[in-house]
């Protein structure tokens, strides 16, 4: 399988602190890669460097073999890379449906057709399908700000999938979600990966969620890769147990 994403010796320094310190890994097509690590291990900074929110101090990011280091997030998104953030990032005043249409409208037509063309940019049906896929049917016209936290988390994830991305980076998707909603979210992610062949990179603190969802796990500590392998290998790795799992 070819690598969709390659991260080569990526470094990000904030003054004297190396938040990401020479991280290298790749993600193969259709894979769900989990990234775990204690707080402050550099996971979100790594995401932000990959996705153009932060300029890396050193190193390379390649998408399908093409260097994308420092590319703007909106350009990366148009290349098929999507993401969610650690904290909820929806548009509370827009309806659920409009949040989803917004999430993909820039992939439709040109800037002029988006001004003079259809109000839903031809995405109404796709948005309704996504709403049904995530079980939010009864909330389609509600302002997103009125949804429960769990429902907003689902919407946040749905928005990341709306443009049909090849690679999705999810930053703590299970954070603050109750057990029933968590199971639902996991099912949706698995189904999306199987049905559409999308590749995932998931940062998560919930070990059970990561171990049951991901096919491979990368462990970060103090900005460096501590271990890499299948969930079972990582779970059995003494260094990881000592540094992260603490038992």
């Amino acid at each position, binding site marked *: 399988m070819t690598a969709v994403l390659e991260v080569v010796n990526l470094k990000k320094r904030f003054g004297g602190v190396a938040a990401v310190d020479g991280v290298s890994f790749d993600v193969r097509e259709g894979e769900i890669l989990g990234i775990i690590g204690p707080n402050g291990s550099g996971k979100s900074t790594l995401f932000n460097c990959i*996705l153009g*929110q932060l300029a890396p101090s050193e190193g390379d990011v390649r998408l399908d073999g093409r260097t994308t280091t420092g590319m*703007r*997030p*909106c350009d990366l*998104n*148009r290349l098929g890379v*999507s*993401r969610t*953030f650690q904290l909820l*990032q*929806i*548009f*509370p*005043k*827009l309806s659920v449906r*409009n949040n989803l*249409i*917004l*999430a*993909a*409208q*820039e*992939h*439709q037509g040109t*800037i002029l057709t*988006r*001004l*003079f*063309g259809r*109000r839903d*940019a031809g995405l109404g049906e796709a948005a309704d399908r996504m709403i049904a896929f995530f079980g939010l049917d009864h909330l389609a016209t509600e302002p997103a700000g009125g949804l429960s936290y769990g429902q907003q988390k689902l919407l946040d994830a749905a*928005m990341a999938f709306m*443009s049909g991305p090849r690679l999705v980076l999810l930053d703590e998707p299970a954070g603050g979600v109750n057990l029933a909603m968590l199971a639902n979210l996991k099912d949706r992610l698995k189904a999306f990966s199987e049905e559409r062949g999308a590749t995932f990179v998931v940062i998560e603190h919930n070990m059970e969620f990561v171990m049951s969802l991901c096919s491979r796990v990368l462990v970060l500590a103090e900005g460096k890769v501590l271990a890499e392998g299948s969930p079972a290998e990582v779970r059995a790795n003494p260094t990881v147990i000592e540094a992260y799992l603490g038992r």
Partner: protein
Amino acid sequence: MSAKAQTLIGLLGLAIVAAFLILTPLTLHRYGIYILSEWAVMTIAAIGLNLTLGYAGQVSLAQGAFVGIGAYAAAILTTHGWPLIAALALALVLCFAIGWLLGYPALRVQHHYLAFVTLAFSTLAFLVFRNEFWLTGGTEGIDGVPRPSIFGLSTTPDLRYYYFCLFVLVLAALGALGLVRSPWGRAFLALRENPIRAMSLGVDTRRYILMAFAIGSTLGGLAGVLYAPLVGLVEPPAFALTLSFDLLMMVIVGGSGYFAGPFVGAMVAVLLPEWLRFLETYYLILYALLVMALLIYSPTGLVGIVDRFVVRRRTKAASAARAALSASIERRAS
């Protein structure tokens, strides 16, 4: 209330407003018609600022300067024998281009820092209007700006010019409505609400910020082109910073980010002081107090009050529907 009933009420309200705007001037004297014309012109400028500030969330204290650029373009060209349509074309292109350039600082600074950048531009424009005598007539300004003829019909009579301004306002409003209801409007809102998330969803925030400034400024220029023949005299104090603050007040008082906001806000800013004139020397004091009280009561402006009422009703109706659904499920279960 059903969607059909809501549409019907909306259309009825629109018909009443249209009838008022068309018929009322027939009963007014010259000054009354002038005030209504001024309302129409300022509403266009406020619609532009509402796009930039209310929808796209970019603070601007330069809208008055764009009204000035439009007004001077109209005054300079028409007093040299050019038709108003030529002045209109020049003003729109000029304001679009300058507005686009003014958007660049917004790519680096936001909020009050951006306000100061646009304030500096406003001051710069005022200095050009006042000091470049060879072009603008300096402090004396340009007098005798003629009113245009539309398809051979002179708009010199005040009533005709009012209808012309009203017609242009309707066109501008329809254009702005089309924009805010299009994917662009959604992108503008995303820009205002959460630019980082918007960018991660493929929204080219840089391009949309520049467009928000350019389009908003163009509408300011359009208002200026109408303003010059309305007043007949174009002079620098009319486009000083005070006008930018007035326009900002129209947007905020009416309801920033609401389509109807600028219409209502311009009414408060232009018409309310006239209605309070019976208070003679105290009318501006009461006016200022009224505006302060309104913003304390409703920071989202006058349209925001209506919106809050509608949202409350919808929430109540949704709660009642949910309660009825739960009750019926319980009944079926028992």
